[in-house]
């Protein structure tokens, strides 16, 4: 499973994940408090500079990550052009793109390991008051492991379908996939139990 972290090493990769998230929260709040159009434009321009600093590959990769936003930008601009209050449309669009781009920047510069470490620390207070958060953390690698397994099985089902039917595969494929997931869950539970089980008791 490939995470969305950029393979282009930047200086920000080394920064603590908590600090980056806190900065993101502050920046996004500021975006909503800033009213003037030029300020919103400044933030977006600054964000683009941050994207461009690590080089062309990082910029291209980053812009591809946020491409889903463009239809919404187009929608806003057309809508406001018809309504006649285009500055409002531009302001909302600028804010939306900047918020999305900044959040994506944190994802691109933070490794999966750093994120799970941060999660571990964030969950610590819950652990101290006796919630079985250890189970959450042990479930994360299970999902990471089993997603490709299920995707692989889904692909095989699709191929089996194509080999036998002239029609395109449709929603019927979801039934065997769900059954496979249920069976895998039973096997996994047995395997976990056989190895001593999950150990929430130490945390509980």
């Amino acid at each position, binding site marked *: 499973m*490939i*995470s*969305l972290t950029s393979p282009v090493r930047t200086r920000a990769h080394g920064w603590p994940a908590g600090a980056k998230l806190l900065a993101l929260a502050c920046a*996004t709040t500021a975006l909503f408090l800033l009213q003037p159009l030029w300020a919103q434009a400044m933030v977006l321009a600054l964000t683009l500079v941050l994207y461009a600093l690590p080089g062309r590959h990082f910029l291209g990769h980053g812009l591809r*990550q946020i491409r*889903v*936003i463009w239809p*919404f930008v187009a*929608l*806003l601009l057309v*809508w406001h052009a018809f309504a006649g209050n285009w500055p*409002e449309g531009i302001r*909302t669009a600028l804010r*939306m793109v900047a*918020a*999305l*781009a*900044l*959040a*994506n920047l944190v*994802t*691109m510069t933070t490794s*999966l390991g750093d*994120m799970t470490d941060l*999660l571990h620390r964030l969950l610590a207070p819950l652990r101290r008051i006796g919630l079985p958060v250890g*189970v*959450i953390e*042990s*479930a*994360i690698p*299970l*999902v*990471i492991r089993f*997603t490709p*397994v*299920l*995707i692989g099985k*889904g692909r095989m089902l*699709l191929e089996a379908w194509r080999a036998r039917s002239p029609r395109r*595969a*449709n*929603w019927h*494929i*979801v*039934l065997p*996939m*769900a*059954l496979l*997931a*249920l*069976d895998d*869950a*039973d096997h*996994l*539970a047995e395997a*976990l*139990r056989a190895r001593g*089980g*999950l150990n*929430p008791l130490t945390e509980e």
Partner: protein
Amino acid sequence: MERNVAQIALFAALIAALGLVPKITLAFGVPITAQGMGIMLAGAMLGAKRGFLSVMLFLLLVAIGLPLLAGGRGGLAVFAGPTAGFLVGFPIAAFVTGWFVEHARLRHVGLRAFIGAVLGGVVVLYAFGIVGMSLSLGKSISECTMLMAIFIPGDLLKAAITGMLVAAIAKARPRALGWTANA
């Protein structure tokens, strides 16, 4: 304990897999993301509590940077975009779907799952999604409802398929649905 965690994890993986398995087209040729169906299934199959946890686990993995949303999207950006409300609504949708199937007094398993999926995966999910979109785009609730209305028929269809799937799963793996025992 292990069985619960395993099912929660496997359904989170199933939701992810349904978003990444290429093109599932409906009878009419309308391409849909089967991911929304995964949310409904998690609620209808696992029940309110475990369905909710399963979807939360899925979102947690998306947030820490795995590209598990339909179309290979993920990371923190999806929680800042105009469709973030739908993501916030996902676990609630699974919870409501699960709550309904657990509490409804309907003999027909598939019908129960269908109504649960409509309540959770359409009514509740769109309520969250539309409020989120209205906040992000600066449009009124009714304007956003109009924007999203074209997607509602597709999601109703997904709820119907979920009902059929749950009825079929209940036949194939009678023990898998915890809540059918007290029907």
